[in-house]
């Protein structure tokens, strides 16, 4: 029980930071950690900026159990990532500038010092259905074997790490670098199909 309490506190800390940074809307985003054969994942429809203990759902990686009906909509993607990568944590967010940019390009190349050093470039993946989709679950893990973070076109990011904080940090870095790009362009030409 003690370890579960520790896990939910970590979720609450990261969730609050992510929300403060504007990486998702009130009920958007989700995150999980892998512990042995189990996944602890945020509840479907929970508020990441205000998580409590009952918002963390324990379920299995390889098999479906009854808690599946409480787990995040993206559980299918989280499971696939854990099965096909060495990740121990997954962070899914909807960072607004990176998401907007993902609708304009096939990869995001980060040219500020921190972004370039940590991430360099982020692939953008387009799928027919992007929410809770098996198509996404099939594609995303392949990219996450080579990249720390990937973008789903027009939807958001999936990042992985050994720790939840690490996965979160990649999302934070990506959005921060995208902001720098945006500021640098003064809006002009940043989005091809707009008047910015």
């Amino acid at each position, binding site marked *: 029980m003690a370890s579960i309490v520790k896990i939910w506190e970590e979720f609450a800390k990261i969730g609050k930071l992510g929300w403060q940074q504007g990486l998702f809307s009130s009920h958007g985003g989700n995150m999980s950690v892998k512990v042995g054969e189990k996944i602890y994942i945020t509840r479907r429809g929970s508020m990441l900026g205000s998580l409590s203990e009952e918002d963390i759902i324990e379920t299995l990686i390889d098999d479906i159990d009854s808690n*599946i009906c409480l787990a995040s909509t993206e559980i299918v993607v989280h499971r696939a990532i854990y099965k096909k990568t060495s990740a121990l944590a997954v962070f899914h967010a909807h960072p607004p500038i990176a998401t907007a940019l993902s609708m304009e390009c096939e990869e995001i190349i980060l040219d500020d010092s921190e972004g370039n050093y940590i991430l360099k470039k982020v692939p953008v993946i387009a799928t027919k259905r992007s929410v809770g989709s098996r198509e996404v679950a099939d594609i995303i893990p392949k990219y996450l074997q080579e990249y720390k973070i990937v973008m789903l076109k027009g939807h958001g990011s999936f990042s992985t790490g050994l720790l939840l904080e690490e996965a979160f940090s990649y999302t934070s870095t990506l959005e921060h670098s995208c902001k720098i790009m945006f500021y640098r362009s003064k809006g002009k030409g940043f989005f091809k199909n707009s008047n910015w």
Partner: protein
Amino acid sequence: MSLEYRLTHLNLTKKTVKNKKLDASIIKQFLGGRGLGVRLYFEFASPDIDPLDPEAPIFFLTGPLTGSTGPLTGRFHCVFKSPLTGTIFDSSCGGYGGVYFVKNGIDGIVITGRLESPSIIYIEDEKISFHEGIYLKGKKIPERIGKLKEKFGEDISYIMCGPSAERGVIFSNLSSDNRYFGRGGGGLVFNSKNLLALVVKRREKNIFNPFDKERFNYVSDEIDKWIYANPITSQGLPEFGTSLLLNLINELKILPHKNFQEIFFEEADKISGESLKNKVIKKRACIGCKIACGRITDKGEGPEYETLWALGANLGISDLDAVIEFNKLCADYGVDTISLGGSIAAFLEINQIPFGDIKIVSELINKTLEALDEGKDISLGSRRLAEKLGRKELSMTVKGLELPAYHPKGIYGMALSYGTSNRGGCHLRAYMLAPEVLGIPKLINRKMSKGKAGIVIYLQNSHCASDSSIFCRFLGLAVSDDYLSRLLNAYTGLDLSTVEFQKIGERIYNLERIFNIKAGFKREDDYLPPRLYFDEYEDMLDEYYLARGWDEKTGFPKQRKLKELGLEWLV
């Protein structure tokens, strides 16, 4: 499609068949299925009629979307006055029967009167014929199915009662293609008409006729997208069926155990969805359903969550094979598993017989199905049984209907929905499981009382409209009302806003309420058994009546509300 509704009236006493096309205005107000049933009941009989009077009608009604191929629309309803509760009662069934009614040119059937001898009704290509049925009497349901197939061919759908109905078991149900009109004693009403089976030919005919095909396909695709994206409808239910709830509800400590004396069953996992999964040999879906919640073991269809609880956890039984066997017995004899389990639980407690003894429970089930010895008392249902034995407080019922598998003291919205349900203690009227446990649309505090009435009312109304359109309850786990009304509009040409869709639901709920009041129900009937009562309940009920626009003392809808809903003709 047009809004025309083809209703066939069978008067069994006179052996007459009358076909009538209902006016579109009645469909616009009540849609079909459940809503149409309660409206038509007023045309055929008074609410105070004895449910087993030959003139008491029983309806089998499809809805505007039955057979449309829209997601989760392959259902039909049975509506009757319940001999168990004395209320208006609707029961929803999946399977195939409803779709084949429509393919045979019939949208709904109402049956009144009584046949002179046990008979079967056969429908093929809009033609209805009566057949001798004495050879089915006394036989279990699988044998009856075999006999019907010998006579009418393999390609049939059927509605039938089982041998328990012949023995007067009050919670006898109706079987249809191995699915059930489960609750309320519809089997007993059916049997009271000397009717053994209603058989319909499986006719292959394209009945897909949307008003706006492009829009219908678009909304259907959108709904499919949400079904596909939701872990409950795309993973949980397809993997486990409804049994996925057992461990979950137990962990939340709201799983009734030992006739609701306790809230947790130590051995629940042994009869959980996870355990049942190993016994399942096949999955089964209704027409138009991508979820396929049906589970088939080597003993047949089921058991579902409520049965695993009623004949397992609530009786202290953790032997899964035994529960599967009990479920099969109920399927063979045609009884509602929840009412049977609830009645046996009351019997055990009243007689201070230990819970958890498979041999004792098995014996009681067999005797109840045959209405023999002490089983005769149990076959009266929990309320009548407890009254007869002088311990009416130990009947875990509301309005005489045995409560389902959620302990109301730990889930207040469910408690209020049990109390205010028009068919007695039922979880499906508001299905508060969605917001209070599953977090749909968002998780709300289970033990919050203030403000719950508004949510209960919204969902009760919504489900009336959804039922009457003929959607499966599980669709509401994936999409909100606006998708339902949009699909209905695209198929029928109706132009209902979500608010108007809700208003239809409210009209139906109020009409059911008025039926019950005219049948003799009062505010006192909206309470839970003493064991399950909690302090906040009274205030919740007051808040509910106020928000409903009902008189605080009588519970009758106020004049203004009746006028708003177009129901002033009832006063």
